């Protein structure tokens, strides 16, 4: 079995490019949903793309690396990712919104560090995804450690309550991501990933639940997506993440 060598500096180049791209140009599936929603200000905002960031909150840079197990990355991976963020902020005129400490609140001045997530996957490729998530919507996320007895009705009630608390403070229309199962932290991770999904859940049971929740939120939402995972006999973790209409992400496979 051969191992593919890759210099971590390639991550820097990819993050620098993808972060700017994500802040300036919305992905096509998101545009299609916003055209359907029909708010003229929002449409005009994203149609003027490629010049300045669509939203002044260019976010914390969440960087997801899916690293093929047959790749050997040389160099310092977190440092390479942060260098990509630093370069994007400078070259793309992005905002520096990160403070080094949550209580002492000194701005780091270059929007680093990134929130770095790594997954090991089969193969010899590295997929880099940058998700600039602003805090207008991030502040509206919630996790409930429901009891198994709360069941699907408990989930629905918590999702709807969270969604109603989110608007109009977060920027509607919003993408509602629901993470079910796993643990406290896994549910939150899944909920945020779910906001980025396109199309219904492949499991008809969850597709139907998505559709029922969307019916009750479509005045201010352009989609409800659920990601479910195995969990413990004692628990029903339920997380809800809100993605604003500037639902920004960009990916590249190296």
């Amino acid at each position, binding site marked *: 079995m051969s191992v593919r060598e890759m210099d971590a500096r390639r991550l820097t180049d990819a993050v620098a490019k993808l972060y700017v791209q994500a802040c300036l140009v919305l992905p096509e599936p998101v545009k299609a949903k916003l055209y359907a929603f029909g708010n003229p*200000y*929002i449409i005009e905002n994203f149609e003027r793309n490629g*010049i300045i960031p669509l*939203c002044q909150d260019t976010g914390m840079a969440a960087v997801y690396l899916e690293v093929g197990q047959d790749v050997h990355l040389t160099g310092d991976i977190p440092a390479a990712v942060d260098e990509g963020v630093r370069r994007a902020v400078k070259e793309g005129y992005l*905002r520096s919104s990160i403070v080094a400490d949550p209580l002492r609140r000194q701005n780091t001045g270059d929007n680093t560090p990134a929130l770095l997530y790594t997954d090991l996957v089969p193969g010899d490729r590295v997929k880099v995804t940058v998700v600039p998530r602003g805090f207008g919507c991030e502040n509206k996320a919630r996790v409930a450690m429901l009891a198994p007895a709360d069941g699907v009705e408990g989930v629905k009630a918590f999702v709807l309550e969270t969604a109603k608390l989110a*608007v109009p403070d977060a920027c509607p229309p919003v993408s509602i991501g629901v993470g079910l199962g796993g643990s406290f932290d896994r549910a939150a991770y899944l909920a945020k990933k779910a906001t980025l999904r396109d199309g219904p859940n492949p499991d008809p049971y969850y597709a139907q639940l998505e559709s029922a929740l969307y019916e009750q939120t479509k*005045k201010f939402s352009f989609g409800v997506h659920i990601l479910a995972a195995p969990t413990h006999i004692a628990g029903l973790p339920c997380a809800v993440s809100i993605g604003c209409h500037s639902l920004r992400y960009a990916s590249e496979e190296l």
Partner: protein
Amino acid sequence: MEKHITTPLTDEAIKGLRAGDEVRITGVIYTARDAAHKKLCELLAAGQALPFDPAGQIIYYTGPTPAPPGRPIGSCGPTTSYRMDKYTPALLAAGIKGLIGKGRRGQAVLDAIRERTCVYFSAEGGCGALLANYVKSCRVVAFPELGTEAVHRLEVENFPVSVFCDCLGEIYSPYL
């Protein structure tokens, strides 16, 4: 019907605005968000003057992205207002008359708006690229060490907002 107002605001102009009205603002407005609010209120608590004359002025809750070459400002949409609630009554007491942001306010803010004949506007959230087109100039007037959170003096022309809370305390949002 769109209404047009200029800054600084008069009580008469404010009384002509109702929740849900579409309004265009022309004149000078000042940006301030979380960190600047904290500093402005520390000045007030110490009995010191604010770095700009607050009489009749509007505070816009935004932290712009850096201006690229050839533009006065980068992206500059509204940030969520409720985080400023703790500080807002003191600023209204100091003479501020208008606020621009997005989302709900706490009861103490709504009460202060009504009691002092002020107005809270909502700008379209997440539309910072579009809103930048209505900004003609931008310069930092206080707290440059705060970066994007510094107080910026903006000259705006026909800046589009809607009235979220009018001086009678009535509120309107298409999403509520």
